[in-house]
């Protein structure tokens, strides 16, 4: 007799919203952390937060239906949970712990930046980063006129940041008045608030944004007022999200100093799952200076350069590529950090030996090519890199011994700068291409799923055969045998069985034969037909009140951005054809 044991552990990540940058950042860091553990994988369940007092329009209902995805947490029998519900937590933090689902109470949980009594929570130490920034602005830059674009009243972090901001000002003998503050809903739809703030504080020298998102409308307002962030006014945000580096100009932001929220949460959760006692943790933060607020974290000293200390080159690398530390290190990819060390150390060495031959120069150029061709620019913004390179270049020029070698070095530097900008431009081009292709594919999907009466009957099967056109390149489609109907205010119960209709692996569609489709809803993640991944996201497929099923997809940037939209397009096609069937009948 043989026994069947399951070794794989599945961790759920519950977040409020899939497509906002803060969530993407958390998902990314949790996934990065999980990659470091064997036999562990992630399923992201993202809902949509509804304010209690909101108008009951279709947007409200769409969110309510979408939130049924949280029920999967119970169905899938997860081994551990990470929850980041900063907004909900503020209101009904204590309710969360009193939820009546038995599995929820049983599984080990770790919260991120969420106010829940007696729960293990990971949060940022807001004070360190804000204080560092304020000290710098007041003591070094001599700035006295500040204002702040704040967050929601019910968000504990936002309130905490406001309090620290206020305290810092008072410590510096600068008074805080209500005029200097404007609250927002912490999303990019805060333009009017930003405009009001700038109206009241037309002479402000620095603006603190409660998170990176609200800096977007602030930038618009500043531009309208003819102010250039970084030059005319200092702007800094919080969370140091990836997209803060893509803003124009890149936004300085306060972020984790070392380990990120997601990484720490995973570490704590896994310990908890192993039965260890864990405590809540506060993570240190620091300011990541970018163009909107120039701030140098390190000096490049001549002594360090001459020593070609690997630790020095490493620090320089992380200074230039400030996002690298928080990325998954793929064992099979090109090791950029080591590569950077290789060509920088060769350049530094040429300073010592006062010579760089043409061959050495060509080899260095080759290495630089490889460096940028393998996506180095994903980890920084060009402005930051160019500045860092120039700083190094200037220091090297100052301490150079041989003009000939130095000329070669300068050529290397300018080559690096060119490559940096070129590769960003290439990426942009590629992104545009990808977006265009995605649009074309989606259009084809819609056309193929259109019914033109009885000559072209469209069945569920036809729609499924077009599934790959949505462009979710690693995903699987699960549909219930009959759609589940959502009733206002009632608890939704998913059927025990669900059909796996098709899967897409690396863009290749595989329609599952009818006999094999049916399986237990609780076993969705165990199906072998799923594309291999360590991080999945479950997206509900619904139209109106009908919940058809779920798309389980590998979690990545594009799915976070567009997955929900694709799922809705798909549900719509299913629904329209159902309606058509009704007419024909």
């Amino acid at each position, binding site marked *: *007799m*043989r*026994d*069947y*044991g399951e070794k794989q552990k599945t961790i759920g990540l519950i977040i409020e919203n899939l497509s906002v940058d803060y969530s993407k950042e958390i998902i990314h860091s949790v996934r990065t952390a999980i990659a470091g553990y*064997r036999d562990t994988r992630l399923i992201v369940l993202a809902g949509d937060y509804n304010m209690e007092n909101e108008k009951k329009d279709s947007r409200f209902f769409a969110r309510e239906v979408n939130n049924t995805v949280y029920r999967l947490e119970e169905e899938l029998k997860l081994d551990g949970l990470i929850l980041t519900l900063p907004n909900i937590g503020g209101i009904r933090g204590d309710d969360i712990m009193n939820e009546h689902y038995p599995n929820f109470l049983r599984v080990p949980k770790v919260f991120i930046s969420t106010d829940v009594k007696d729960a293990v929570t990971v949060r940022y130490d807001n004070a360190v980063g804000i204080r560092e920034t304020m000290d710098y602005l007041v003591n070094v830059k001599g700035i006295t006129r500040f204002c702040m674009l704040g967050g929601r009243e019910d968000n504990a972090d936002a309130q905490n940041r406001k309090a620290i901001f206020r305290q810092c000002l008072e410590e510096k003998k600068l008074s805080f008045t209500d005029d200097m503050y404007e609250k927002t809903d912490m999303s990019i739809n805060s333009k009017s608030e930003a405009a009001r703030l700038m109206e009241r504080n037309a002479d402000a020298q620095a603006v603190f944004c409660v998170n990176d998102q609200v800096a977007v409308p602030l930038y618009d307002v500043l531009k309208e007022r003819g102010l250039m962030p970084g030059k005319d006014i200092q702007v800094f945000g919080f969370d140091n999200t990836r997209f803060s580096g893509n803003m124009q100009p890149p936004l300085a932001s306060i972020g984790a100093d070392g380990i990120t929220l997601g990484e720490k949460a995973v570490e704590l959760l896994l310990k908890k799952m192993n039965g260890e006692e864990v405590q809540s943790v506060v993570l240190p933060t620091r300011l990541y200076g970018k163009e909107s607020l120039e701030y140098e974290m390190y000096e490049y000293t001549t002594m360090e350069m*001459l*020593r*070609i200390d690997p630790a020095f080159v490493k620090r320089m690398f992380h200074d230039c590529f400030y996002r690298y530390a928080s990325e998954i290190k793929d*064992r*099979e*990819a*090109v*090791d*950029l*950090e*080591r*590569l950077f060390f*290789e060509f920088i150390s060769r350049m530094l060495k040429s300073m*010592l*030996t006062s010579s760089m031959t043409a061959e050495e120069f060509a080899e260095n150029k*080759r*290495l630089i090519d*490889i460096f940028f061709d*393998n996506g180095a620019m994903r980890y920084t913004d060009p402005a930051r890199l160019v500045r860092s390179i120039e700083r190094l270049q200037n220091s090297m020029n100052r301490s150079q011994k041989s003009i000939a070698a130095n000329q070669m070095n300068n050529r290397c530097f300018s080559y690096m700068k060119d490559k940096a900008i070129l590769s960003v431009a290439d990426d942009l081009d590629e992104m545009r291409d990808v977006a265009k292709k995605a649009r074309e594919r989606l259009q084809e999907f819609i056309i193929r799923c259109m019914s033109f009466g009885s000559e072209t009957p469209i069945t569920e099967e036809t729609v499924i055969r077009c599934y790959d056109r949505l462009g979710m390149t690693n995903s699987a489609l699960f549909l219930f045998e009959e759609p589940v109907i959502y009733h206002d205010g009632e608890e939704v119960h998913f059927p025990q069985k669900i059909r796996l209709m098709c899967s897409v692996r690396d863009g290749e569609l595989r329609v599952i034969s009818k*006999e094999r489709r*049916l399986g237990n809803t609780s076993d969705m993640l165990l199906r072998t037909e799923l594309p291999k991944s360590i991080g999945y996201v479950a997206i509900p497929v619904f139209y109106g009140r009908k919940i058809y099923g779920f798309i389980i997809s590998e979690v990545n940037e594009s799915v976070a951005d567009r997955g929900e939209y694709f799922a809705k397009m798909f549900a719509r096609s299913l629904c329209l054809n159902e309606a058509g069937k009704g007419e024909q009948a």
Partner: protein
Amino acid sequence: MFTWNYQYISKAILEKTFEQTMLAKDGGDVLVRIHTAIHLEDEAVELARFIKSLVPTAKIIGTSTSAVINRGKLAMNQCVISVTQMNSATVRTLILPTVDEKSGLPLSVDSVCSCAKQTVMQKDMKLLFAFLAGEFFDIDRMISHVNECAPGVKMTGGIVNLSAIGQQKDCEGGFVFDENGWSRKGLLLASVAGEEADCTASYATGAQAIGDSYEITDAFENCILKLGKVDAAKEYRTGVGEALRRNPDKAELFPLVYADQDDIPVPIRYAANVSLSELYPPEDPVYRAAYEARPDLDGTERKDRILTNHGVTTGRFLRRAFIYDRKIIADNHAMFRHIENFEKAECLIGYSGAARSTIYSNCAKWELSAYEDSNICGCVTAGEIVNDGKRNLLAYGAFAVVAAGEQPATQECNPYAFSHTDSLAADNQELVKYLTELESRIERRPSAALAAAGLREFVRDCELKLLYSENEDIPNEAAMNMDMKLRGYDRFCIIRVQDTTGMKVVFDEDRIALTAHGFLSKCADFAARHNYKIYSLSTWQVALGITSYTCSFKAMVRHMEQLQKELFAVSEGMIAIVPDFCVINGCTVENLKSVYNSACIDMKKKNVQFYVCDAGYYQSDEDSIRERYHMINLINYAIANDGIIPYYQGIYDNKTGTIHHYESLMRLKDENGTVYGPFRFLEVARTYGLLYDSASAIMIKKVCERFRNAEDVSVSINLGIRDINNRDTMDYLYDFLSEVKHPGNFVFEILENEDIDAYEVLENFVDRIHELGAKISIDDFGSGYSNLQHIANIHSDFIKIDGSIVRKCCESKEAEGLMRLIMSWAKINAGVQVVAEFVENEAIQNKVVKCGVDFSQGYLFSKPTPDIAV
């Protein structure tokens, strides 16, 4: 001329041996050489006298040594006696003092030489033995004297040393002796002359000079003070690394050579922080004159020094030397051929430098093994006199062989010896390791930049010598290891062509060589095009490497697929080959070999020629290792502390609706009383086979004893192939069944989840069990391991349908179909009854009954429990 070589054991045996040898009374002279590593001076002389009394005509020469060479073997603590009977040649021997007895001052070389000329040297002299004891004599000059006045005469011998026996502390101060006495400051000479006599000499060092030459600009005695105007010790250290300060022994790895003798190394001793007066006491009369001649020298200054053995004179040029395996092999090959081609090789004489063994520890053993079948005799010396074909020279750290004779003769040498170069390669690995460390430690300080550059160049030169494969211009395995360690090469593809021996049966050598060359050059060409580094591991095996910081693994795999296609395209005149590709990520020196080996096994199993794997994958994670050891402890504990508990699960008769019999299942209990199921420990127990054996034996006995007197209830016991192969267990079972009242109550379930190679054993077992009246069941039927044909031969009484089929029989038509198939098969084979396991709910039970299955087992009826009423 004829030579006998004996190991000296005792005088009595020696006497007998001489009798047996029956030296021709009226023949030519008899030369007796004694090399001893076991005698003190007076004992040695006594031995010489004893031989003289046995053979009054013998000319005896003797030396001390640290190890003797006899029949191709190097032996410590032995004494070897070599007796050569000449046909017509004449021998003269003499010991000359090199120091004036009264004054204690060295005698001049000229006076010693003229004395030798009158006494020892003779007409038609072919071979001159010369052994020097004590260092106060310029033997180098004496050799050049001989070269001048007796051109063409081959010399052999050297500076004698001593094994560290007896009271002598300094093992370098050897002595020479004959029947008349011994000397620690003397020169022993022996000449062989005769019209018929002829001899040839050759040597091997394995050394090669590298880089620039430096002039000795200042020296004192054997100490080199300045090389090319700079401090010699400092300069030398630059060449071989700062590590020398901590580890002066390393100096021997990198000797020097004189520029005019490219391949004869001068071993270097590195002495840290000593003064000249400590090395050469000024009060010693020998040195007094030297100090007087150099009033400018400060004898008390302490600093690092380099010392050599001889020939230190200002004006001579030195180069750095490097001893490495390929040169050793090449040198020995050349020497071996030289000796082989000599026509009158009646007797072989060999002297090996002591320094040689310290540099390359396996070298002497390796090169001597070629002469295992010959009658070579000699010893280890501190310095050797060699002959390079034109003249005689003094060398340190060489292996010198002389062949002599009067009539045509050949020596039986062992031609296969040179093919076993493993021991040398091992020494080479050591050397590479040292160079690797050296390179990684090369100074980073700006002030040391220049010295470091010189050092780097030297290391690179050495590497070039060490790291290239023998035939082609391609780096070898040592280079690969070095690149892995120093340059971060961690992605490798190992390409191997298999079954090359089969090729030789069908094709001629030229064609094979052409194909091998084509294979290699295609790979090398591809590597150059795509920035890979290529290493030749053997003729038919190469590795391509790249760093993880210049190429992603995916891209590498793509490249290798392309290369495989290119290699597959056969060009004319070449043999079609199928190379195996194994692409490995995350290699280190430590893991590469083991990963590659396991990959090879996997490739063979699956019969694939292209394999991709990650070295990290083969490392078990901490948790599973911990779990494994936990389980081993648990099993051990259970065996020792009665923790093996049989559980019983009832098997339900679908016709009568009662429990028909019980299956016994093994459980383990730890010290806390926690009970473990088999899936936690069975795998571990199987990998540690003996653990399984003892646990299983206990289990079987417990179950048998419990049911010994049972009347109307039967039990089934699981047996693996291991159990059936276990004699003790089987003997117990057979005995038990033959004495028990109702053997029919016992059913043996055979687990077929291991590969069975001997079905005979299994069938034999089944027959025995049936004879004894017990029953057989086949477990996990349909699980994929069971071979239908064999199962048909087993004639089992029960078969148990695998749980995976039963579980699914409600959901899947195919599973149900399989069950029905098994049932119909059972029906045809009347007498076979069927059990369904994993019957978990009513739905499954209904289906099972509907299919006509006789028995059901599962949680629906009963869970396994230790307590049943029997």
